[in-house]
Each structure stands twice: as C-alpha cells, then as structure tokens.
C-alpha cells in the first residue's frame, strides 16, 4: 500500500483535492445559500458541458483561441530570438531600441486594445498583436539573459580549439542559452494564453474569451464556469507539454543537473 501511494501520490493527491473542492461546491449549492444564477451546481455545469460538446460549438472556440495563440506566439518567438540574439551579440546595437523595448514592456497589452480596434477592427490582426506583445518580453529577456550569461570559461575552450565566432555561437553560446530560451518560451506561452482570453473578451466574435463574455451577457453562469475551467485546463496541458519538450531537448534537466 505504502509503495503504491509513493508511486502514484503525485497523481492521486491532486485528484483528491479537486474532489474535495467539487464536494464543497455541491454542499454550498445544496444548502441554498446562493441562487442557481450566482453559483450553478457542479451537476448543472457538467450537463451544460456535455451539451456543448454534443453541439460542437465549444471545439470551435477552443480551436480558434489555440490557433491565435500559436500564430502570435510563433511571431513573438521569431522577433524575440532575432532581437535577443542581436542585443546579446552586438551590445552596441541596443542603444537604438532598448528604451523603446523597455517602454513597451511596461505597457499592458490590453491597454492597446482601443487603438488596435480603431486601426485593425476586431479581426485577427489586433488579437495576434496583443499576443505578440504579451509573450515577446519574457522570451526576449530570457534569450538575452541566456546568451549574455554564457560561461566565459567555456568560450575559452572554444578559443583553444580554434572555433570561429559562428562556431562558438552555435556550438557553445546557443546550447548554453537553450535552458533559458526554453524557460522564456514556456513563460511566454503562458502569457499569450492569458492575453488572448482578455483580448477576446474585449474585441472578438469568437474564441473562448468571447464565449465567456457572451455567456455572462446571456446570464449563463454555468457556461462562464465551463469557459474558465477549459482555459485553465488547456493552459495547464500546454505547459505540461512544453515541460516535456524541454525535458527531451535538454536531455533531462533534472537528470544531468544542468540549468
């Protein structure tokens, strides 16, 4: 029993926590403290969820949100990688754009929505720009940190064995920065997922954010709760997936102790 628990506790423990929350939620609903409108019961939420699955509408919203995240995140990564590498390798270049980068880092992407709607309407462009702005900075800052933090002693090994600047970049600097770059990407992915929901709540006709806002306007609190649970679950799963990719790419960070 003990070995069974030790082996599976990391799966069992969170499930027990979730079951306790659902039980408490049911108990509060059954006590009649809140109306069905304010807090629908877990049973009602579950039934609505099954209906949404049956109709297929929910899949459409999920896929639309995911595609937006994927597009925005990819653009943010390419931009951040280019600018981060440039900043790290040509430190003099940063005087041209560093104040601007720091300025936008301090501007919450959602505050740009009124302007973006004015310029691009509520189409895809404005939402992808929001995602790019949200996820660019953690990726950029981690790339700069990873590259600038490269161990001088390892670079000297490259010098000894006659490595050119390009060989050192691809053979030492980038592999060394890989852990930081991947961590930045992981944080950036989380940020873009949060940003898309916000953007969809303000300026969209589809997607999970829009679904939540529309449900609120229709007084369907059960659908709002489903939306929240879905966002959390998809965010959690995509982060887990990324964690697995990091593990494979870094050949087991924990195992070889390199991070």
């Amino acid at each position: 029993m003990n070995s069974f628990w030790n082996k599976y506790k990391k799966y069992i423990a969170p499930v027990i926590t979730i079951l306790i929350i659902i039980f408490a939620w049911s108990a509060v609903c059954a006590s009649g403290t809140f109306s069905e409108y304010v807090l629908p019961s877990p049973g009602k939420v579950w039934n609505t969820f099954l209906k949404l699955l049956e109709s297929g509408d929910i899949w459409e919203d999920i896929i639309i949100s995911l595609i937006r995240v994927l597009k925005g995140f990819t653009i943010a990564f390419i931009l951040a990688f280019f600018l981060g590498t440039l900043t790290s390798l040509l430190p003099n270049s940063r005087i041209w754009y560093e104040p601007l980068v720091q300025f936008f880092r301090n501007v919450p992407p959602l505050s740009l929505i009124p302007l973006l709607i004015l310029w691009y309407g509520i189409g895809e462009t404005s939402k992808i720009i929001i995602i790019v702005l949200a996820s660019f900075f953690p990726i950029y800052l981690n790339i700069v940190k990873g590259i600038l933090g490269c161990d001088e002693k390892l670079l000297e090994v490259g010098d000894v064995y006659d490595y050119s600047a390009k060989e050192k970049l691809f053979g030492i600097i980038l592999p060394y920065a890989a852990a930081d770059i991947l961590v930045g990407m992981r944080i950036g992915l989380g940020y873009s997922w949060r940003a898309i929901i916000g953007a969809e709540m303000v300026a969209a006709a589809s997607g999970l954010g829009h679904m939540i806002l529309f449900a609120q306007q229709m007084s369907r609190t059960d659908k709002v709760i489903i939306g929240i649970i879905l966002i959390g679950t998809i965010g959690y799963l995509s982060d887990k997936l990324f964690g697995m990719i990091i593990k494979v790419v870094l050949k087991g960070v924990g195992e070889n102790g390199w991070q």
Partner: protein
Amino acid sequence: MAIGEIHVKNISKSFPVNGKNTTVLDDISLELHPKEITVILGKSGCGKTTLLRIIGGLEKADAGQIEYEGDSRMAFVFQEPRLMPWLSVYDNIKFSGKKIGITDNEIRNLINIVGLRGFDNSYPNQLSGGMQHRVSIARAMAYKPSFIMMDEPFAALDYFTREQMQNELREMQHKQHMSILFVTHSIDEALLLGNNIVLIENGRIKKSFNIPESDSVRDLMNPSMIAIKQQILEQFKNTITFSKEEKNVKENNFDNACSEPCRKPFCWLRK
C-alpha cells in the same frame, strides 16, 4: 607531424591592481622541448598560470615574444574540467577532435585510454571529478596537439585520484610522445611528472632542474629525488615573506579579534 620547440623570449606582463601596475611576469625566457614534460612550479600568485595562458595564446604579453617551431597545434587542460554540460563524454571529446576530422574509432580509443569505457553516453554531471578531468584530458588529446598546456589539472582532486591521474598522464605521455607544459604548486607533483622543472617566483625564473628520465614509475623516496626536493625547498625557504596583516597575526596581535564562540554583541561587525 613535426613537433618543434617553443622558445619563450623575454616575456613580461603586468596587470593594473587598485590603480597600480603590478608586474606579474618579469622578463621570462624559457625553452620548451618536444616530447618532454616541462613543469612550471611556484607558489600561488607567482604568475605561473599567466605564463601558461600567454604561451597558450589565451592572453597577450606586454613585451617579449614566443616562437613556435614546426607544428604548434596546442591544447589546453584547465584547472577545472570545463566540459560542455549538454554534451555526452563522446561528444565532449569530439568537440575538439572534429576540428581536425577525428574518426569514431579514434574517439572510442581515447575513451579507453583515459579509462572511461562504457561511459561514452554519460553526461558530465554523472561523472566524478576525476572522471571529468579524464574527459578533459581526452578532449585535449583528441585535438592531436603538438603541445598540451595543463594548468594545475589535478589540484581539485583527492590524494588517491590525483596519484592515479599523475601515473596515467605519464603513461599516456610515454605512449603518445606528447609534449606537455604543466603548471603546479605541488613539489611532489613536479617531481613525479617533470623532465624539466622551472621554479618561478615573483614573476621571475628562479632556477631550473633537469630530472633524468627513467622507464619505471618515479619513487619520491629515492635519494636522488629527495635531494632535488631539498634543493627546491631551499630555493623557496629564504623568500617566504609576510605582509603587514600576516605579521600581526604571527605576533599574536589579537587585540581586535576574539575567540570562538564569541557572544559579544555585534562582534561579527568588528571582525
């Protein structure tokens, strides 16, 4: 591969310390002979590592020159193993070897020579300190250098591992006919390894010793070895000087210091 001599001529180097120029190397001239182990021996801070880095091309001298005869491909073994943490043992060795087109067989052979058979796919952190040093030596050898520069490569190892590594290094040097420039602060290590021992003090060469080559493992208890060790110690004996702070400690000037465990309030601030 024609292995040539290295002529070190009148090398000087100084570093700015607290706004003042401190001379680290002062007019050093030295001949490094092929197929021999030359040991640079000296106390910490005497400039031996700087000299090695200048000969190895990692630093520039302020004055003087170094002439390399014949093939001057050089490899470096640092004080720390400096392995790439994301590469396996095999790939770490290949890191230097691929520049000269090393073959798969040659890498496997090197892994065997340094006694790491079966660890080809291990990562640096899965190896002990001694094993990591061996990989770093194998990486240097994979470059097929005419000279290997070694900067106290065994300083961080325990006595037993160090002794084993020293013997392995001598054996490898015999087999591969390598030329080695070895820096250490250990007189015993210098006596065990060196064909030539160069004493450096305050940035100058104090004396050089030549140790006749023998096929067997050197015995430090051998009378001739003891005699050389005594001569080396003699050289250092007269020059052990103390700074003002060290003199204070020596003369039991402990007014401000207090013994452990101290319970005076804020004592740690006064220390």
